[in-house]
């Protein structure tokens, strides 16, 4: 029997160790299943909205489009679907997808009054957090690693086996023990992930990238556990120290860091932009129409001279009012986006020194479910909304009828291409943290056989 096989038998015959590994496997499997179900639910929602969309548009077309059809009515009633289907790896790292909208029906009215509609109930979703593979990796896997390693050295000392083990001529005892535990933890994480990736049709490179980040994150924890376990003499003390190391950099510092970032970089709420835009629009009803058209012509001079109309209402004035509303709050929108982007950057920087945050950043970027992905969807909505306006304005300003043929020409939204990428900086920081702590841990455990560690209590 090889030493490795002997070590594997010793490890797996221990009920506690076996329980820890099986528990991790079950949690990971449950998380993958939960992620797949949640992403399927998002796809199902998008499909359901698409079906409703088809029916709604048919009704609007029948009621509003025709030889005497008005573009303004059509634009008013035609809600156009935009959607951000879950990327294939989203099941593993859901990220912001449960908070940010993934489907939004918009009209050619003011954009800013529409795109933050879901913000008021998303806050409730943020409270319980999300249970996905990344959550199990970041928060639960370290606890399993602690359970497997906290007494790897100290239990031998406490049981009086340490001198016997060290008296044997073989080598690589701690390397084998750590390596086996590392392999088991990685297997418990990888098997469900790979199964989920196959089911979701996830790209091999992305799946590999996520596993690479997970392997580095676990290596960091094994290094830390080895360092503490070899440095302390009692199992209970080692366990307490490791739990402390889990709480502080995984829970306390990220929470304080996020609070500090939020305090240092204030950002309003999207709903405030909605209200501000609506106030401008509502004010437009009470002011002379030229006070709406003049700011409108600043950015759309091509329609100057076509603003005259008979009567008190015309769609071109109504839509110009909405556009001016958007443009009035444009700086606020830019500031809001800038603040969110700055917060995102600082969170990334936090990830360079906190492996948990760094791993989370890598996961969400690879899965394309982070704030960057949310911003990209928002940008694609804005671009699409611009296309809608440009499509409708000629009909309104030229007083052209909006026929069924025109209705068929209404631009349709094209989903953005998922843009998951490997954040090299975060990955390198993770690699360095893992390498540093593995080195420190290996160095410390090698010294276990030194005079101090092997010194008899009673000579």
């Amino acid at each position, binding site marked *: 029997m090889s*030493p490795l096989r002997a070590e594997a038998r010793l490890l797996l015959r221990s009920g506690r160790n076996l329980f820890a590994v099986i528990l991790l496997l079950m949690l990971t499997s449950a998380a993958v299943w939960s992620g797949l179900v949640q992403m399927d639910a998002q796809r199902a929602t998008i499909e359901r909205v698409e079906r409703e969309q088809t029916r709604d548009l048919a009704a609007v077309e029948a009621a509003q489009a025709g030889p005497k059809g008005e573009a303004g009515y059509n634009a008013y009633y035609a809600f156009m679907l935009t959607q951000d289907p879950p990327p294939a790896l989203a099941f593993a790292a859901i990220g912001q997808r449960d908070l940010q909208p993934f489907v939004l029906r918009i009209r050619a009215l003011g954009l800013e009054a529409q795109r933050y509609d879901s913000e008021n109930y998303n806050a409730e979703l943020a409270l319980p957090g999300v249970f996905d593979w990344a959550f199990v990796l970041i928060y639960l896997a370290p606890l399993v690693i602690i359970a497997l390693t906290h007494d790897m050295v100290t239990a031998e000392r406490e049981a*009086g086996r340490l001198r016997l*083990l060290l008296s044997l001529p073989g080598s690589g005892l701690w390397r084998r023990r750590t390596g086996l535990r590392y392999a088991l933890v990685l297997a418990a994480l990888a098997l469900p992930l790979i199964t989920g990736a196959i089911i979701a049709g996830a790209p091999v490179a992305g799946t590999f990238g996520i596993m690479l980040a997970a392997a580095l994150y676990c290596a960091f924890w094994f290094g830390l556990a080895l360092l503490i376990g070899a440095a302390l003499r009692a199992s209970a003390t080692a366990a307490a120290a490791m739990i402390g190391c889990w709480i502080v950099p995984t829970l306390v510092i990220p929470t304080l860091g996020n609070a500090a970032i939020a305090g240092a970089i204030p950002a309003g709420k999207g709903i405030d932009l909605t209200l501000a835009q609506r106030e401008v629009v509502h004010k437009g009803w009470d002011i002379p129409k030229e006070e709406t058209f003049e700011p409108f012509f600043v950015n759309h001079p091509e329609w100057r001279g076509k603003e005259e109309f008979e009567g008190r209402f015309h769609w071109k004035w109504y839509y110009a009012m909405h556009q001016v509303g958007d443009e009035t709050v444009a700086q606020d929108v830019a500031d809001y986006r800038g603040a969110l982007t700055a917060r995102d950057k600082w969170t990334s920087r936090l990830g360079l020194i906190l492996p948990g945050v760094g791993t989370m950043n890598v996961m969400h970027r690879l899965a394309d479910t982070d704030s960057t992905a949310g911003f990209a969807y928002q940008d694609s909505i804005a671009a699409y909304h611009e296309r809608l306006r440009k499509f409708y304005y000629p009909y309104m300003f030229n007083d052209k009828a909006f026929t069924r043929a025109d209705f068929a020409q209404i631009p349709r939204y094209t989903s953005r291409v998922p843009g998951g990428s490997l954040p090299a900086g975060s990955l390198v920081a993770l690699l360095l943290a893992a390498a540093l702590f593995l080195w420190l841990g290996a160095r410390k455990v090698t010294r276990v056989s030194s005079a101090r560690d092997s010194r008899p209590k009673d*000579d």
Partner: protein
Amino acid sequence: MAQGTAEPAIELAGVQHSYGTAPVLRGLDLSVQRGEIYALLGGNGAGKSTTLSALLGFIAPSSGSVRVCGIDPVSDPRGARAQMAYVPENVSLYDHLTARENIAYFLALAGHDTGASVIEPALGAVGLDSQAWDRRMSGFSKGMRQKVAIALALARDVPVLLLDEPTSGLDPRAVLEFNGLLDTARERQVAVLMVTHDLVSAVDIADRIGFLTAGRIEEEQQAGEGARFDLNALHDRYAGTGQAI
């Protein structure tokens, strides 16, 4: 006794070692031949376990030389450890493994064959009931655990055996059985160094007894041919090391 004239299996010459500023070994000279059982007696702090640590290569003496079958445990710890088996005082093997599995585990770590042809004769030699071979060790008595540890040492079939307080906590019958095992080891030409507080046990089995006082051998006594030690004289000598029986 089968003491030979060849190179000693265990040899310490002028060994000095300190823990911090506290000297523990102060010019220790000790040698054990193959086929010899040497009992090293001494009180607390006399340097008994430190002597074992020096032989196992756990510590590097500040001066003097240590050799196990001619190998320096400091410069070649693996080579030296391959020549010796160590049985610690409180034998606590893995409770969730059986006796057989425990021996197989430690043999595997030592790079030895772990087959039944190696393990079963060793377990048989120490007199452990064969029904206990495949039972988890959580229910084993101290004596049974001691037997498994000795079986492990025998299974390794090495020329040097280091025993740290081997009869501590054993009942009288177990001590007699243990002495029988050491007789077997002697017959196999194994050099045995046992570190002990137990003068009676040492007298019963040892070929030579060394009294370790303040880090050096103050006196050695050798059993005469077919004769036993004078227990009364030994008691008076031993009491001087700081630990009475």
